[in-house]
């Protein structure tokens, strides 16, 4: 048992006599040395990751029926417990799983029931769980609010051009992004190609321009800097350079795989895997006190579509990782893939709430008093599962 665990044990009895705010600051201030400060890194995957292609339910007999082509392309994944497997592109994460540093949670949803990327992202980032309200309040986010409640963990950095919604609501938040970044992202180019179908000159020009760029990119300049692995490395350096920084936000787009999903996801997941690997490597000893939470706005249809992809759905998976995580297992109830078990007959059914999992892991990792959590997460309680 290390010093931190010991303090955790005693923590409960110390609470009673002091105000919660005071407790947090004094308890944390005495419990951690600077290098042991619990880091929290939030990675938002924009575009709705297909969880069935990531944490694969190979055991479910309906899986292959819904996705004969995709399942064949995917082949056998890297084994996890309960008959699940991990996409082979996630080799580094799989080694973490074996070290108990990765904890996938299956069939999670944020509580948002629509299928719009923007609204789904706003909903997940703001964490204010007003399912029936049309207007999502994006003035503050769960992470920003939680930071505000902690006298100890009070500084955050977003690896982004601006402060994302999840971090809003906190005073001490900064944003950093490589300057002169030139990388636009392949998904924008393909969306533009699609939009220019009726404009031959525009699409021709774009196509030729992309070829030019591809050749020029051989020299790798801006693109290198904005590769996810370099962003995570920069993120780790920023965290290491400032002792007061204990929170960071990253994002990675490119998950909206309506067609040719297998190849695209293999590249995307590899980029994610490389990025998280470089984050861990760069953090060094701090990794032991780090939690990384990776989630996406919603999942995709269970049945594969006609173009080798999947469309907007409901439940997805999320990943908790880091030296502080009690991983090597899978959480979340599996709802099943029989037609009657699907949400609206098409999507994976959410059986637990992604925001509630985030609340749980933050409450434990940053030792925030349970009484405060509902106010930070739009009324949501925490789960009883021990995650860190």
């Amino acid at each position, binding site marked *: 048992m290390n010093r931190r665990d010991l303090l955790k044990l005693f923590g409960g009895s110390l609470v009673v006599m002091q105000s919660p705010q005071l407790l947090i600051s004094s308890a944390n201030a005495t419990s951690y040395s600077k290098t042991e400060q619990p880091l929290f890194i939030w990675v938002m995957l924009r575009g709705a990751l297909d969880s069935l292609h990531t944490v694969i339910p190979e055991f479910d007999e309906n899986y292959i029926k819904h996705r004969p082509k995709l399942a064949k392309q995917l082949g056998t994944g890297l084994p996890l417990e309960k008959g699940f497997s991990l996409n082979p592109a996630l080799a580094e994460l799989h080694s973490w799983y074996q070290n108990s540093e990765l904890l996938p949670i299956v069939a999670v949803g944020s509580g948002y029931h629509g299928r719009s*990327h923007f609204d789904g*992202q706003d909903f997940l980032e703001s964490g204010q769980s007003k399912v029936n309200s049309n207007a999502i309040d994006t003035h503050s986010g769960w992470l920003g609010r939680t930071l505000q409640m902690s006298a100890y963990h009070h500084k955050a950095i977003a690896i982004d051009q*601006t402060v994302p919604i999840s971090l809003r609501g906190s005073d001490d938040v900064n944003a950093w992004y490589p300057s002169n970044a030139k990388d636009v992202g392949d*998904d924008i180019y393909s969306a533009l190609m699609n939009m220019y179908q009726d404009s031959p000159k525009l699409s021709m020009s774009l196509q030729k321009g992309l070829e030019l760029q591809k050749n020029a990119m051989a020299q790798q300049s801006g693109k290198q800097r904005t590769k996810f692995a370099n962003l995570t490395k920069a993120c780790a350096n920023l965290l290491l350079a400032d002792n007061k920084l204990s929170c960071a936000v990253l994002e990675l787009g490119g998950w909206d795989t309506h067609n040719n999903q297998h190849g695209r996801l293999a590249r995307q997941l590899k980029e994610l895997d490389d990025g998280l690997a470089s984050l861990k490597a760069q953090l060094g000893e701090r990794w032991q006190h780090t939690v990384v939470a990776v989630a996406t706005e919603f999942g995709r249809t269970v049945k594969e579509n006609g173009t080798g992809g999947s469309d907007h759905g409901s439940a997805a998976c999320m990943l908790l990782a880091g030296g502080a995580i009690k991983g090597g297992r899978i959480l979340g109830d599996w709802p099943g893939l029989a037609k009657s078990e699907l949400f609206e007959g098409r999507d994976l059914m959410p059986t637990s709430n992604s925001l509630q999992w985030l609340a749980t892991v933050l409450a434990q990792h940053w030792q925030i008093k349970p009484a405060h959590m509902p106010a930070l997460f739009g009324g949501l309680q925490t789960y009883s599962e021990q995650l860190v």
Partner: protein
Amino acid sequence: MSVHGLIAVNRFGYGAKPGELAKAISNPQGFLKQQLKQPEFNRVLPSASELMQKLYQQRQQAKMLESKKQESQKQQTQNKESATSPSNNNQTKKSPKVQQQAYRDFCQDSFKAAVKSDNSLSWRLLDFFSNHFSVTAQGPVMTALAPTLEREAIAPNLFGSFADMLDAVVHHPAMLVYLNNQQSFGVNSKIGKRKGKGLNENLAREILELHTLGVDGPYNQTDVIALAKGISGWSVSNKSKHSGRNGFFYRDAGHEPGSQQLVGKRFTQKGEAQGRAMLKHLALHPSTAKFVSYKLAKHFISDEPEQELVNALVARWQQTQGNLKQVVEALIEHPLAWQSERAKFITPREHLIFAHRVTEAPLPKTRNLIGLLNQLGQRPFKAGSPAGYGDTEGEWLSDKVMIDRITWSRMLAAKVNKLDVKQLIEQVWGEQLSQRSYLSITRAESRVDAITLLLMSPETLRR
């Protein structure tokens, strides 16, 4: 018809600021006509005359420093053991030079004004005529003066007669210096005889070819020489001894004496009046009406405007002796200007202004703005030719620039990622966005992607 409101805002203006489309819809023509007001600039910025004075002082200071430096170098070589070195050189480098500061301020000011303006048609027209009378910022003097031409000679005459605009432009030091007329003197003038100086035909030729009759207009080399003689002695004064008179300076001693025959008319006036009468004759010439009307229709409507539309502008030009407000009104009133086909490709500058108007993104820092326009091929006052920047799709739709435009759109989108995409579409196009573009934008995988696609949609690129 709401589609006409849309055309009013996008084809004639720089794109819809919040609430603008709603204003245009009820009466699109009226909406445009009430915009025909002289553009306003930041009046704190220096005039051409003040800049010439400052440039003169800058040169004098540089000379003084240079002579001091030479003196101290002489001293140093005289007593070699002395190790003191003058640091004067470094001091001059600290603050930007007069011309650089002015150029940047002017570029930023007109960009900002165009983004903020409620009369964006008037700024489109200013850009058109500024490019029609293109001057290039090269060398210290032109870097400072080039941006002042549109402010001092073009804007004040934007809704008056073309003759007045031409007269003001040819009197302006930026034009006189750029096309070398300040040193053009008649061979038979006093200066010509005394100093052996002669004519420079540059400005006269460009007036005929680019500013009035057009390259295919009814003139020949004899006319070029006649006009050059007519405006000989039109020069600039940039010495402090003429303080307060920095700018146009008519040197009678340099004016070619005698009458001139220009494009079928004899000009017997004396002095400066002769050139003025010639310019007026050219401004009112039917070929000028045709040439400029065609360019206007080409700029706003299509790379190959229909003859019927051009004819309507020419007719109004002739009825009103080239009253520009009337000519623009004729354009606004013509049904062919409201055709639903989006035929005109947006230039980089127009694209940048559009993006900032519709998203209300924070304006770029001046250096970034100029750098960006440079990268996209339209650095202000850098056309490098008196013909100005090209005005067709072929010149602006290049493969490389396409990628560059996507890149800056993405960077701009990241700065305004709080915007509601559907609301933005409504603001810019109302109900008129194509289904394909609408779905591409609203189904993008993030808001930043969506705004990028909006800024690069076919409906944005062509209007």
